[in-house]
């Protein structure tokens, strides 16, 4: 059998296994080792499993994932989200749609120390939703804004998805994190503008909240020193800001996790149960991500031996669409895949094949990381999978999926516009990392 036939059968088997709910990493590992074994031999294939598994889990660089997951878990357990929302609300809550704008700002602040889209969406479902409903905001808008803002967790550093992209493509994780800052801030700004436009077009739709005095506002600022300090220290250390120690991404994660733990304990917000829960949460998620990473690396050997990335590159570049045409095709593929699987699985499964195409076309790998994370994050809010929507539904019982998806539509449009802006002006993502 030719290598092309083996590759095609391998991909078909992979998709069948994944559709039959075999864990993505295990399916990739099984197909990868079977295909490799068929083409090279059983003994080398089995050796590959042991070596790749042990090498992956003992790679210090990969420690960035559990460390930032732990930081996010401690931050979530410490309840820092409430202070962020309260302070943002005191500044803008009295405006039309102000509570929505406050949610965007607070989600942005929380995402900058949490790194998880799902955790951001789940947290603000309990923090911002009741407040928005109290002031008469429609369910669709309140849940839609939370679902959309949850995606900020994957864009603003520290982002687990960006870290995984960096590991797979062997790009500098620090640079990827820094590259996400300006696009993340752009997302915050554009979400706020979207809410303002909704409020302007339909004045009765988004009521005004209560006005706070300047004294209350400044008092609120005192409550958010902890998340601000954590962000500046961790990301500043990664970027190499003056007067701060310089960190590798794994060190930044470890310092961030320990910092979040110390802040939580010293401020009395992190209880014993909170600490234990955070440790368990980080462990479970890290194990799930590493399983996929091990599977992807084994599958990568199969791809190499069948020369699949080279063949896909030849196929796509031979279509005569031009580099932006091919990029558009890839984006479209990701949007469709977003209907079938979650962001992490999509990134790990497809990047080893797509990345050579991107570098062959001369696109910047750091910029593409930002673009691809933005694209797959759209899958978190668009139907039918929409993980953030499922999370919100699990927290807020009395809302239907249709209502949440209805509320999210304006933000999906905003995201698509942002995607076009970032593709047109790569400098938005690349300016900060170019100064590292």
């Amino acid at each position, binding site marked *: 059998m030719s290598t092309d036939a083996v590759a095609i059968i391998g991909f078909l088997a992979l998709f069948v*296994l*994944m*559709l*039959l*709910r*075999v*864990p*993505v*990493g*295990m399916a990739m*590992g*099984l197909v990868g*080792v079977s295909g490799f074994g068929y083409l090279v031999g059983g003994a080398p294939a*089995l*050796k590959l*499993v*042991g070596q790749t*598994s*042990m090498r992956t*889990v*003992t790679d*210090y660089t990969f420690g960035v994932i*559990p*460390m930032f997951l*732990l930081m996010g878990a401690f931050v979530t357990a410490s309840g820092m989200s409430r202070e962020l929302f309260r302070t943002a609300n005191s500044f803008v809550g009295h405006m039309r749609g102000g509570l929505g704008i406050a949610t965007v700002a607070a989600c942005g602040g929380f995402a900058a120390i949490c790194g*998880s889209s*799902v955790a951001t969406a789940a947290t603000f479902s309990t923090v911002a939703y009741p407040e928005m409903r109290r002031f008469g905001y429609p369910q669709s808008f309140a849940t839609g804004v939370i679902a959309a803002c949850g995606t900020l*967790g994957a864009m603003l550093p520290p982002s*687990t*998805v960006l870290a995984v992209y960096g590991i797979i493509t062997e790009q500098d994780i620090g640079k990827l994190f820094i590259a996400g800052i300006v696009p993340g801030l752009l997302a915050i700004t554009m979400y706020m503008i979207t809410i303002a436009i909704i409020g302007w077009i339909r004045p009765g739709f988004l009521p005004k909240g209560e006005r706070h005095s300047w004294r209350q506002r400044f008092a609120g600022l005192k409550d958010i020193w902890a998340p601000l300090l954590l962000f500046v220290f961790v990301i500043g250390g990664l970027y190499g800001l003056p007067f701060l*120690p310089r*960190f590798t991404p*794994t*060190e930044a994660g*470890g*310092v961030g*996790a*320990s910092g979040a*733990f110390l802040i939580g304990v010293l401020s009395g917000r992190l209880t014993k149960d909170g600490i234990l829960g955070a*440790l*368990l*949460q*980080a*462990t*479970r*998620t*890290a*194990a*799930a991500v*590493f*399983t996929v990473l091990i599977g992807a690396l084994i599958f990568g050997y199969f791809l190499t031996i069948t020369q699949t990335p080279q063949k896909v590159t030849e196929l796509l570049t031979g279509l005569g669409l031009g580099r932006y045409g091919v990029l558009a095709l890839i984006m479209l593929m990701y949007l469709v895949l977003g209907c*079938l*699987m*979650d*962001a*992490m*699985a999509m990134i790990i499964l497809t990047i080893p094949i797509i990345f050579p195409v991107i570098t062959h076309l001369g696109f910047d790998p750091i910029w593409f990381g930002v673009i691809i994370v933005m694209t797959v*994050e759209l899958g978190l809010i668009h139907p039918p999978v929409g*993980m953030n929507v499922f*999370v919100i539904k699990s927290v807020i019982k009395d809302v239907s999926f249709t209502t949440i998806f209805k509320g999210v539509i304006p933000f999906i449009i905003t995201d698509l516009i942002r995607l076009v802006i970032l593709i047109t002006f790569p400098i938005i993502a690349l300016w900060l990392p170019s100064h590292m």
Partner: protein
Amino acid sequence: MKRVYMDRFIDSIEWVAAGFVGIVAANIFISVVLRNLFTYSIPDSYDFGRLMLGILIFWGIAATSYRGTHITVDLVWGNVGPKYQRMIDVFATLVLLFVVSVQTYTLFDKVMTTRTDNVLTFDLRLPTWPFFMVAWLGDVSAVLLIAIRTYRLIVRPELMAETKIKPVE
């Protein structure tokens, strides 16, 4: 084994992994503080960090496999009735059991090779194979727990009710 003992056993496995996450974070934090404030490096902190990472991940995979919180594609599963959901779950768990068993077998070979090659840590020149062995024991636990999961899915499915939300991304 009674269910209460079984669950305690599974919880203990998870706690082992969770404990190692905390130790890895503390190891990094203390190393960074000592390096920047006292220009002192803990001997082998780099090697200890990565070896403990290996241990936590394999023990974590054991717990994750039992709890069914791996990253999966739920498109078909979410759109069929309970009977077919159970069939899919049993099939997926059997595949999982097979893959992790093969992994455990090959990892043992890796542990033995590391021992034979006398691979040592950088500073203290300690053998690394005991760390690999502890990590491998995590994989052995995974095989055991997946076997229990398979049994429960077939015989006592009510014990395996799971959440659809997975805390990734």
